[in-house]
């Protein structure tokens, strides 16, 4: 497997981060920690916004989000992702798309 640093890729992108107002939130952190075996968001998210912590917690930082929607769609067993688009003008701003 090739080690890939996704941060290097995201660094090329343009964002207008809505500080203090993440557009996606984990509804109940305990559900990720205690009830979700797969934690597939931690490897499916193409911007690696979800991180598996050592203590089985899942943390979410939406700054690099590409607004694809995958995390919400795969969280079928627990529907534990509160997903909205960012406020108008915020979030990823594709230069090329």
């Amino acid at each position, binding site marked *: *497997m*090739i080690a*890939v640093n*996704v941060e290097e*890729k*995201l660094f*090329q*992108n343009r964002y*207008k981060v809505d500080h203090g107002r993440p557009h996606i939130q984990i509804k109940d952190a305990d559900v990720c920690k205690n009830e979700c075996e*797969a934690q*597939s968001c931690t*490897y*499916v998210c*193409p*911007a*690696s916004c979800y991180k598996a912590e050592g203590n089985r917690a899942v943390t979410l930082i939406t700054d690099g989000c*590409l*607004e*694809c*929607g*995958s995390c*919400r*769609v*795969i969280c*079928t067993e627990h*529907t534990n992702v509160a997903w*909205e*688009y*960012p*406020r*108008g*003008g915020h*979030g*990823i*701003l*594709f*230069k*090329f*798309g």
Partner: protein
Amino acid sequence: MAEKFDAIVVGAGPSGNTAAYTLANAGLKVLQIERGEYPGSKNVQGAILYADALEKVIPDFRDDAPLERHVIEQRIWVLDDNSFVGTHYRSDDYNKPPYNRYTIIRAQFDKWFSSKVREAGALLICETTVEELLMDGERCIGVRCDRKGGEVHADVVILADGVNSTLARKAGFHGELKAGNVALAVKEILFMPEEVIQQRFNINEEEGVVIEMMGTVTEGMVGTGFLYTNKDSLTIGVGCMLSDFKANPQKTTPYALLEKLKKHPSIAPLLEGGEMKEYCAHLIPEGGFHAVPKVYGEGWMIVGDSGGFVNAAHREGSNLAMTTGRLAAQTVIAAKAAGKPMSAKTLKAYKDSLDDSFVMKDLHKYRELPKVLHDSPHFFTTYPELVSRAAKTFFTVDGVDKKTKQREILGSFKSARRWRGLVNDAFNLWRAFR
């Protein structure tokens, strides 16, 4: 807000722009709302533009639309880890204007399309996210945006808000997307001098090549890779069914998959020296016919990706988006001319016109394909390896006689899938594509 419009269009991608353009051109009072900083800034596509669907609304688009290259050569590659077996179709007929398809860069193209929409008379508001639809019982009467006093009313709302279809979901028009019905695609754009691209791909100025790839690069997941030539950049990407990403025991990330594709010995030399300037991800609705939700109701219609209008078998989406946008707009125009209310009964004409068009005919034709591919992952693992091994056996000169080689190749197919498997696979594919 007291102001009322004939129609509100949510989103400024291909479907929303086509709808807004068509409506405004007919003299209707149109408000278009886009959440990005400018039209295109939230939009991601491969991207190939098929001329026909756009020609139907803007016949002279070639005069000033930002087009990258017209495609004269289509390559289909079956990859294993070290090789590819490919078919290339190149024809000088594709060099005779008017050209049939182009590579485009969506941020630029959408901006251009939007300028046409505004010239036609539609009012566009950017940097504004529509939070929800305003409902009066069953009837959609407008939208609420994330602006102060952001309630706007209209006779009809056209939802062109993209694959996540947030507004229709919130309004309960349809449920959540299924991971088995969407592909997650990631891509990068790599810049390099025009001349380098032309040399590497054996093309002249303005001519373009597209490569579609399948095989072991997707690690058994149902999916494809792609490489498109733009004017002075290349787009390289890979997409697989989201359900497969989720279930992949190797837990491969989409960006690791992309990186693996970029390092493939048949692809790396084409990308050499390219300067990466953007990394994108996007969901593609690939559920086809059976996944299309109800696309009209009391005062609302759904167009483009939001309605799942993608023909995955032919890699077509933006043309279906434009066509659905146009047909929805024409439905509104006809209803207004006839003085009819924008009721579900009136707007059913939109669905009828979709059924009559290539959009639903094509989706219907391939209605079983998503299931066949989902049930037959060996199309993406076993066969590419067999084909590649067969080619290697056949083309390696090593003193073994040709008849023995032929037996060896046939034997490898038989032992991998058995006669029954081979016949079944052929039948299933035929049924899905006929």
